[in-house]
């Protein structure tokens, strides 16, 4: 990084940088230290203080809770509710298709239903369910008190709830989108009504929440593992969370970039996908499927991760081939990005290009298969007890394997052309998604329920539910392979009789109701009152991982003390572990300051680094989500002023939330963390979880920006008239001025951080102020660069995409400017000091990414078109 290569002569003349306190004391603890008993009276006092710090708000204030155990439950129940709603849509469609020439649903309504069924199942159920369950379980699996940013989880949840109701509610008013869950233009750009806007804005809103959750889960896995849990001891679930979080960062941003272009076309007639004005509908397909195919694995991997937790417990032995499963998770994560064009085999791309994607689609089978073999191997060598969750996992493996085999067929382009857009595809995708997601998740709910709710679900209802769902599923979807091979296209609201499709459809419809019965039995088991039922045993399945060290009855503190871990299965391998955990023998067993805390450790070897103060109950996440919702929802109705005001309030709420609750100057620089270890209470830069969160967020942001730049090159390759002959180009002087001002704004921010660390606070403030002024100047120059030559974005795609890049960059500079001013205000208010400079580190990191964005924009807008 550039900050290490500063001028040695200058550095000598400046004061020394303030140093951060380091951890002091023994690590790892010795067996003797761990064996020292804790005084029971002291332990009780500590437990009382912890209870107070982690007290969950009661009454109507309960909704201000941010604890992962509360937010995770709301999140997963909401996602399950949306799943049931989307399931009802499916049943109604199946009724319509039961017999030929049926008029139960109109064509228009049918179109809305299949669009919303797909959209809701993918965006409101499958992905959020992963995030919900991970938020709920990850701290328990890692022996952490909570996620690193509890209010961010709460914010994500409220965004999801509002966005979900908005999108799904549109079905009740008959204004839902009708173009299929992938919204292809020109059908959806030309569509009348609000449908596509609801889809684009509502789901973009939810995607932002998804990325927030991904950031939190990655930081949670990397930085919040318990001391001693090295990377080779991590529960496999955490590995999958890490991989899937990374995939979300690179998969969702292209879709957000696509949504951005799409909505600009719908609202302002910028012709990105209109071939008459130089646009190309295929760009949307590329952006959508660069998201859409990894999405399938984003759904599948976490569910298979649940299987990876259940299988060792059922086999009563450690998992076979831990490294192989990690290989398979990471390998699938990578390869799944090379498959997107297999959804576009019929679009007329060069034959050679189709071959690459066909080959990569076959290659991904290898890592996917490896993990299934590892599970089977574990079961073969173990002493298997078919516990109920294992039944669901077994069903999942069978169904998913069948779906995987049709996937291998579909990866071959010539076969794909034959069955493209037929019911064969519907059968295939339901086999992969039901087998790869629904079965394992329900199995996971049966497995983890005692850890979440301290009660067991019913064994009998669970078996009923499984056999109903499993048979019903196969009755519904197995015949669909044949229906598809017999030529029935997807997405038709009815069909003529006597061409061999009648009985197949009738069977599928009957099967669908059997599935529904199975899911309803499960839903009833989930929500039925369990007050009279005794509490479940603490470790009812005899699992070996940390989530089974939970407290019965429930405690809000997560863990009594954050353990020192030295095995993959501490409950199996480490005698005395539970007693020490409960007595508070391990780390941070106390909350003398009455604050919520968790331990932050190093990324690979989990050496303790820092006691992190984490945020408690607050209304600000909910308020911020409501205003953010306004900023996304009002534009649907073209109420741009209201949207702007709502957005401003959202920003103000977030600033209030950050100012009052994050990066507070602690009462003492270090504190006793237990077992003789003293840890810093404030860290900044790469040791701080917040810095990692910014880094990861900006990786995702950079991906979205890269997708826009990809758009420019895509138009250049796909269109002969890009840029059109004689087109006005951006003003070169203004572009150069913008590049200079923004580079200086970055340099002053970096300089401010370095001067501040060297106790030159006034100079740092001057630089921050100058940086903000330069950023503002950069915004003005960038806008002038495309305003001056009167490039009309509605006339052709070339000015439109240049404008889009400028709008994107300007919005980001605006954020960078707010961050500079925030640091400036912090410096004046005494919350940002030479030693407490986390905000300034994070702002500088943001500006590192921002300056690259600005320079690329300047090059692409100012120089590239003149060179093409």
């Amino acid at each position, binding site marked *: *990084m550039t900050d290490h290569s500063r001028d040695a002569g200058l550095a000598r003349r400046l004061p020394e940088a303030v140093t951060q306190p380091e951890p002091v004391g023994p690590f*790892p603890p010795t067996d003797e230290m761990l064996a020292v008993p804790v005084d029971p009276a002291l332990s009780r006092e500590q437990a009382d203080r912890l209870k107070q710090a982690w007290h969950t708000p009661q009454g109507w204030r309960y909704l201000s809770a941010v604890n992962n155990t509360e937010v995770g439950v709301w999140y997963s129940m909401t996602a399950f509710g949306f799943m049931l709603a989307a399931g009802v849509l499916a049943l109604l469609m199946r009724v319509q298709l039961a017999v030929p020439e049926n008029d139960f649903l109109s064509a228009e309504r049918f179109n809305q239903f299949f669009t919303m069924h797909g959209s809701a199942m993918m965006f409101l159920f499958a992905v959020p369910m992963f995030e919900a369950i991970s938020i709920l379980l990850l701290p328990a699996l890692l022996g952490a008190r909570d996620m690193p940013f509890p209010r961010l989880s709460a914010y994500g949840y409220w965004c999801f709830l509002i966005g979900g109701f908005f999108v799904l509610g549109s079905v009740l008013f008959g204004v839902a989108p009708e173009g299929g869950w992938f919204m292809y233009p020109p059908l959806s750009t030309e569509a009348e009504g609000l449908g596509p806007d609801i889809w684009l804005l509502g789901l973009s809103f939810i995607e932002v929440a998804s990325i927030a959750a991904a950031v939190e889960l990655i930081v949670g896995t990397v930085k919040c593992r318990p001391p*001693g849990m*090295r*990377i*080779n*001891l991590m529960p496999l679930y955490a590995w999958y969370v890490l991989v899937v979080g990374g995939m979300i960062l690179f998969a969702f941003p292209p879709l957000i970039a696509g949504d951005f272009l799409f909505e600009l076309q719908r609202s302002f007639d910028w012709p990105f996908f209109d071939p008459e004005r130089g646009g190309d509908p295929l760009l949307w397909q590329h952006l959508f499927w660069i998201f859409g195919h990894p999405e399938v694995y984003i759904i599948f991997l976490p569910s298979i991760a649940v299987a990876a937790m259940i299988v060792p417990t059922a086999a009563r032995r*450690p998992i076979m081939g*831990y*490294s*192989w499963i*990690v*290989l398979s998770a*990471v*390998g699938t994560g*990578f*390869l799944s*990005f*090379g498959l997107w064009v297999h959804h576009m085999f019929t679009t007329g791309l*060069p*034959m*050679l*290009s*189709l*071959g*690459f994607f*066909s*080959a*990569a689609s*076959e*290659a991904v089978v*290898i*890592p996917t298969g490896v993990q299934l073999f590892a599970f089977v191997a574990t079961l073969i060598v173990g002493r298997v007890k078919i516990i109920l969750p294992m039944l669901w996992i077994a069903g999942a493996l069978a169904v998913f394997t069948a779906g995987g085999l049709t996937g291998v067929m579909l990866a071959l382009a010539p076969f794909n052309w034959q069955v493209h857009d037929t019911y064969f595809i519907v059968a295939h995708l339901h086999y992969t998604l039901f087998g790869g997601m629904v079965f394992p998740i329900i199995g996971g709910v049966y497995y983890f329920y005692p850890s979440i709710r301290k009660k067991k679900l019913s064994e009998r209802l669970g078996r009923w539910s499984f056999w109903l769902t499993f048979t019903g599923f196969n009755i519904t979807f197995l015949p669909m392979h044949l229906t598809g091979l017999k030529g029935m296209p997807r997405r038709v609201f009815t069909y003529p009789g006597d061409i061999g499709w009648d009985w197949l459809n009738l069977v599928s419809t009957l099967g669908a109701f059997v599935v529904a019965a199975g899911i309803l039995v499960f839903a009833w088991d989930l929500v039925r009152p369990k007050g009279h039922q005794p509490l479940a045993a603490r470790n009812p399945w005899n699992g070996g991982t940390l989530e089974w060290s939970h407290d019965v009855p429930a405690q809000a503190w997560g863990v009594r003390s954050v353990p020192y*871990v*030295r*095995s*993959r299965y501490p409950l199996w391998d480490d005698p005395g572990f539970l007693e020490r955990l409960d007595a508070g023998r391990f780390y941070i067993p106390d909350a003398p300051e009455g604050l919520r805390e968790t331990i932050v450790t190093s*990324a*690979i*070897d989990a050496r303790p680094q820092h006691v992190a103060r984490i945020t408690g109950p607050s209304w600000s996440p909910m308020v911020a989500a409501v205003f953010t919702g306004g900023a996304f929802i009002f534009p649907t109705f073209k109420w741009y002023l209201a949207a702007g005001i709502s957005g401003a309030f959202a920003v103000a709420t977030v600033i209030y939330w950050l100012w009052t609750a994050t990066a507070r100057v602690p009462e003492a620089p270090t504190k006793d963390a237990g077992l003789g270890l003293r840890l810093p209470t404030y860290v900044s830069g*790469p040791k701080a979880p917040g810095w990692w969160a910014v880094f990861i967020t900006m990786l995702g942001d950079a991906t979205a920006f890269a997708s826009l730049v990809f758009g420019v090159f895509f138009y250049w*390759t*796909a269109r002969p008239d890009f840029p059109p002959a004689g087109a006005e180009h951006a003003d070169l002087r203004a572009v150069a001025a913008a590049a200079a001002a923004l580079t200086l704004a970055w340099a002053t921010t970096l300089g401010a951080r370095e001067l501040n660390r060297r106790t030159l606070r006034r100079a740092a403030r001057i630089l921050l102020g100058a940086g903000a002024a330069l950023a503002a100047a950069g915004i003005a120059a960038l806008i002038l660069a495309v305003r001056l030559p009167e490039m009309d974005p509605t006339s052709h795609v070339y000015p439109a995409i240049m404008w889009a890049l400028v709008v994107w960059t300007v919005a980001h500079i605006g954020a960078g400017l707010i961050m500079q001013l925030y640091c400036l205000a912090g410096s004046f208010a005494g919350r940002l000091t030479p030693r407490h400079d986390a905000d300034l580190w994070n702002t500088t990191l943001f500006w590192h990414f921002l300056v690259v964005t600005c320079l690329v924009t300047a090059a692409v807008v100012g120089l590239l078109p003149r060179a093409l």
Partner: protein
Amino acid sequence: MFWRQPRDRSLWHMILAPTIWALHFVLVYGVTAVLCAKWDAADLARLTIFASTAVALTLIVAVGRGAWRQWDYLDGWDDIHDRPTDNHRRRFLGHVGFLLSLVSTIGVIYVTLPAVFVETCR
């Protein structure tokens, strides 16, 4: 920063091989898209693909060799690395890195095969 970390303590080194696969994939896709769309130059596209495959495979083999040494399998024929020690962490990261090099090698070869068999852009 991460590139200064020693490879036995680095997740970034572990994922080097699939990263090479990804770069190779992007290059192959981009080159074909541009050459086929702009100039219908299938032969040039195929040549570029073969050349970049040679480079990618060489790099992956180099990465894989490093990972193989780090895994140190022949010393004790041990493939379960579940102890809380520096040695087990080092060997675990080497093991996964090595397996990822194998999958990446297969991936690169697969993606090259179409260029062997398909001789035209159409």
